[in-house]
């Protein structure tokens, strides 16, 4: 990164972190800059790597099949004209229909059937038993068709404990993740910008 690039990065990093002290115009400016850059960057990438080679060039080259996505895309943008909003339902219907058709069987297999198979398939081990008990107890906690009394109550309680352990582990990992991001910025500020780090 060039020296001017390092300075811009360092100053915008400090502007963002200044929010920890209190809200201020430098933070706001950096925030708006980030949003604008993100949208601009995504737009350029989409045009350069998707629309231009995938739509414009084939159309110019005579690939008439590309007219279909062009029309559907155009109908989607027509949403911006209030009187013509109804036409945008056509591409939306295509997206919803195709999306549901593709994703439902895949989700059913990967997220439910394979997961259920793995849950009951390891009951010969202690880990497998702990997992099976956890799944049943947690599912019972979310069973709302009967009041949680009698046998349901202790089972749901065990489910609550399992969830608490999960939330604790997730929180721990979240802390680790956020600290890692701070480490990355600190390494940049102390190393690349201020040249205080050796190596």
């Amino acid at each position, binding site marked *: 990164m060039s020296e001017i690039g390092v300075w811009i990065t360092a100053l915008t990093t400090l502007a963002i972190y200044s929010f920890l002290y209190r809200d201020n115009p430098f933070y706001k400016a950096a925030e708006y800059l980030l949003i604008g850059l993100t949208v601009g960057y995504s737009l350029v990438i989409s045009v350069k790597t998707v629309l231009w080679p995938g739509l414009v060039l084939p159309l110019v080259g005579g690939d008439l099949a590309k007219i279909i996505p062009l029309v559907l895309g155009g109908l989607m943008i027509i949403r911006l004209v209030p009187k013509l909003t109804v036409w945008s339902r056509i591409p939306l219907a295509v997206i919803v229909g195709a*999306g549901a058709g593709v994703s439902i069987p895949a989700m059913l297999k990967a997220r439910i059937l394979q997961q259920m198979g793995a849950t009951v398939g390891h009951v010969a081990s202690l880990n497998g038993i702990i997992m099976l008990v956890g799944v049943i107890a947690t599912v019972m906690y979310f069973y709302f068709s009967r009041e949680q009394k009698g046998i349901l109550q202790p089972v749901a309680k065990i489910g609550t404990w399992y969830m608490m352990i999960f939330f604790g582990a997730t929180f721990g990992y979240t802390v680790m993740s956020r600290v890692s991001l701070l480490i990355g910025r600190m390494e940049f500020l102390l190393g690349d910008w201020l040249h205080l780090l050796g190596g």
Partner: protein
Amino acid sequence: MRFDRRYIFLAIAVAVAVPMLFPIGLPVAVTDETRQVYDRIENLAPGDVVMFSFDHEASSLPEVRPLAEAVLTHCFRRGVKVIGLALFAEGAAVGYDILKDVGEREDKTYGEDYLYLGYRPQYSAAILGMGESIAEVFPADYDQTPYEELPLGQRVKSYADIELVVSVADGSLPTYWVEYAQARYGQRIVAALTAVMVTAYNPYLEAGQLDGILGGLKGAAEYEKLLGQPAAGTRGMDAQSLAHLTIAILIILGNIIAFARWRRGKSGKEGDA
């Protein structure tokens, strides 16, 4: 009395900065999960192909870059070929940058040893499409060279020619790799994740739907240790440990104060009665 939380921010900043300026060199223990990923790559034969999908945004770079660099370095040293791509627009240039950097450092040739396909929207369609034909989904690479003109592109037609997919992710993309590439085409997958995502993917690892998980900067440090090449992950570990210690102390202190207040409130009520 209210405690100004800015003191906590300051404490964390000090806990991170001090070990960077004065490294302690705390040991890094390698977990079974990291070793599993390392062994998976170690057991690949020279010439095998691994697909790297950069499924993340730029904001998570401090975590995912060390992970990607460590696994990529290992792949190149094993003589494994690499095909890179991005399913998030923000990951497109970042992935290219990482792949080029590591490829050049390991003295690899673009097009023969590795190539980069760039970004495709609609990740479910892209993942499914590559099961039939990669050239259909990516007719050209990131620099607009036709896919089938590249030596590696001529060899690799679909998942059938790919040994492993590594999804470098900060969100839900590995789930889609499992749903559309693993469940449908039997493609083996490893997830290199930000730490915050690890608990969400452990069930997939337990179920055998993922071949391995690498989690966060700690995962990168462990992998670097196995590679025998300390880098960004290892450098951050002192700061990570000290920051965690500071946070743990703050949580314990906060609970002691909350408990003392609760006791005081309870005894106050009993006195009133």
